[in-house]
């Protein structure tokens, strides 16, 4: 195409030179202009934009960040550019995670860490983000391909692994601890972990890692019947962890007994997943850029368009020992933190009273209150807001049940036990 256009240009040039009558030049000049435009047009498609050094607020067509920086001009966000300093880990690059990754990429997030072990399949095409030509690629590779095209400024790191296995979990932990992006950062190497997985096992693994690393994270989920979902903020020691209580799910309102599960594992809709990804990334932006109110729990029931919210206290008897450790640490620093928060709120309130009246004054003042917000005790089901239920029961009080001791082998050597099972297996 390019060669063809160049030759056409040469032909037009020689035609121009061969002309003796200058009145014929105007239409040829016009033609040359059109060829030039065509040549430029062809360049736009495949070429990537170059990286930008600083986020500019300049409102021009070529600035990818002008509309985001406008948030700062409008006073919604104090310093939008800080987004480039943040690292976010996304676990699960499926219907929710991939969309969340695209949103954060378009927002100009500093660095994304992506985790998944699956491949793109045609069966995924009812969801957003992945394209049919990516079928067969790992979700992580396909995501990096698309995301780096959309925004080359984002540092992308991808991990094709299953975090629930011992080895995958170790790599997951060390990747979160890696501080190469910001060597001076406090805590772990990431600012937030987003769980976008579709199963309880993987959520428990994220919970384990975040409790051990004292890492704030957000949970997200879409129900197996595809009509409800939720997001949840988890701060180790401060809020309930994922193991503190059986997971909460938004009741769809559909009677479980009439729900036909035969023949299928799970349904999915791009709409519900897109809504949940949107809620998750909105909460992420509010958390990272410190604006608005970060939701501790937000449910979405699409059949009734109902959005239950609530807050959960950690369970002092949580079965996760890392959670218990974080709870102890939190109680130690809590009085100092509360005092600091109160002082800050009072300072803000008084300064806004003196200063020009802002629209959000009433909100600021309403928070200056030393009573704790209503936080529910995760253990009892009665306290749950309407429309929320526990997905699983709690473990029974641990007790020695009448175990049939008789047939149990009295041998206590692991090698001997292994041999005994092998012997049984070979007969």
């Amino acid at each position, binding site marked *: 195409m390019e060669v063809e256009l160049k030759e056409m240009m040469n032909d037009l040039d020689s035609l121009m030179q061969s002309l003796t009558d200058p009145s014929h030049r105007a239409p040829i000049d016009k033609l040359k202009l059109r060829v030039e435009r065509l040549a430029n047009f062809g360049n736009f498609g495949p070429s990537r934009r170059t990286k930008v050094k600083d986020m500019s607020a300049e409102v021009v067509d070529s600035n990818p960040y002008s509309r985001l920086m406008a948030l700062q001009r409008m006073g919604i966000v104090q310093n939008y550019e800080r987004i480039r300093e943040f690292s976010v880990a996304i676990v699960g690059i499926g219907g929710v995670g991939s969309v969340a990754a695209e949103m954060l990429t378009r927002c100009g997030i500093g660095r994304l860490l992506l985790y998944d072990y*699956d*491949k793109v*399949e045609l069966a995924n095409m009812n969801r957003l983000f992945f394209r049919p030509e990516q079928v067969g690629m790992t979700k992580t590779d396909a995501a990096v391909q698309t995301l780096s095209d959309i925004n080359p400024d984002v540092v992308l790191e991808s991990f094709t692994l*299953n*975090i*629930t*296995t*011992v080895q995958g*979990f170790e790599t997951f932990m060390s990747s979160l601890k890696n501080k190469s992006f910001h060597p001076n950062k406090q805590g772990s190497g990431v600012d937030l972990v987003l769980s976008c997985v579709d*199963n*309880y*096992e993987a959520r*428990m*693994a994220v*919970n*384990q890692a975040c409790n051990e690393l004292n890492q704030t994270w957000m949970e997200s989920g879409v129900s197996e019947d595809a009509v409800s979902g939720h997001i949840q903020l988890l701060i180790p020691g401060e809020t309930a962890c994922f*193991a503190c209580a*059986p997971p909460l799910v938004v009741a769809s309102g559909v009677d*479980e007994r009439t729900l036909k*599960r035969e*023949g*299928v*594992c799970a349904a999915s809709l791009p709409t519900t997943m897109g809504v949940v990804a949107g809620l998750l990334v909105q909460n992420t932006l509010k958390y990272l850029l410190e604006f608005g109110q970060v939701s501790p729990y937000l449910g979405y029931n699409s059949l009734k368009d109902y959005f239950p919210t609530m807050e959960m206290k950690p369970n002092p008897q949580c*079965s*996760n020992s890392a959670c218990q450790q974080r709870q102890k640490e939190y109680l130690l620093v809590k009085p100092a933190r509360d005092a600091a928060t109160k002082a800050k709120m009072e300072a803000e309130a008084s300064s806004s009273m003196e200063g020009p009246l802002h629209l959000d004054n009433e909100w600021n003042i309403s928070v200056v209150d030393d009573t704790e917000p209503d936080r529910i005790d995760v253990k009892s089901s009665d306290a749950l807001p309407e429309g929320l239920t526990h997905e*699983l*029961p*709690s*473990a*029974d009080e*641990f007790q*020695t*049940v009448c*175990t*049939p*001791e008789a*047939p*149990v*082998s009295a*041998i*206590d050597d*692991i090698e001997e*036990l*292994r041999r*005994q*099972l*092998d012997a*049984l*297996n070979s*007969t």
Partner: protein
Amino acid sequence: MEGWDPSTKSTLTQIPLLSTKAGPRDGAPWTQRLKEEYKSLIAYTQMNKSNDNDWFRISAANPEGTRWTGKCWYVHNLLKYEFDLQFDIPVTYPATAPELELPELDGKTQKMYRGGKICLTVHFKPLWAKNCPRFGIAHALCLGLAPWLAAEIPILVDSGMIKHKDDAASSTES
């Protein structure tokens, strides 16, 4: 135990329960748990054999006991259908059950997640959660895999998705 058939229930109650709550990252307590797993699996296998209902073979594929491989089979219309069985012990075990995989059946049935992980009934996870840490690998096989095979293999055979190895041209062994 609502939602379970009587024979699964009675078998389950005879499998020795475990008591150590430890996962593969827990060091010495995991070794203790592993001993309990072996004892419970030995008892369950013996019980199946004496009841003439032997239906699986499973053994640890690594010294740490975090990966398990073996076989399971199901008899339908007097023919035996055998499949590779594998699973990893998750880092959050025993709070979460192992995800049992039948890789040969991956993609052949809707009742499976990718990678050949079987899709358990709505009754499995609540019962597992309620009985943590007393349920182990043997309980997962009894409550998860056995009912799955009983429900899915007849459908897979009758729909022609799987063939008996004697019918399959590639196999020579009986």
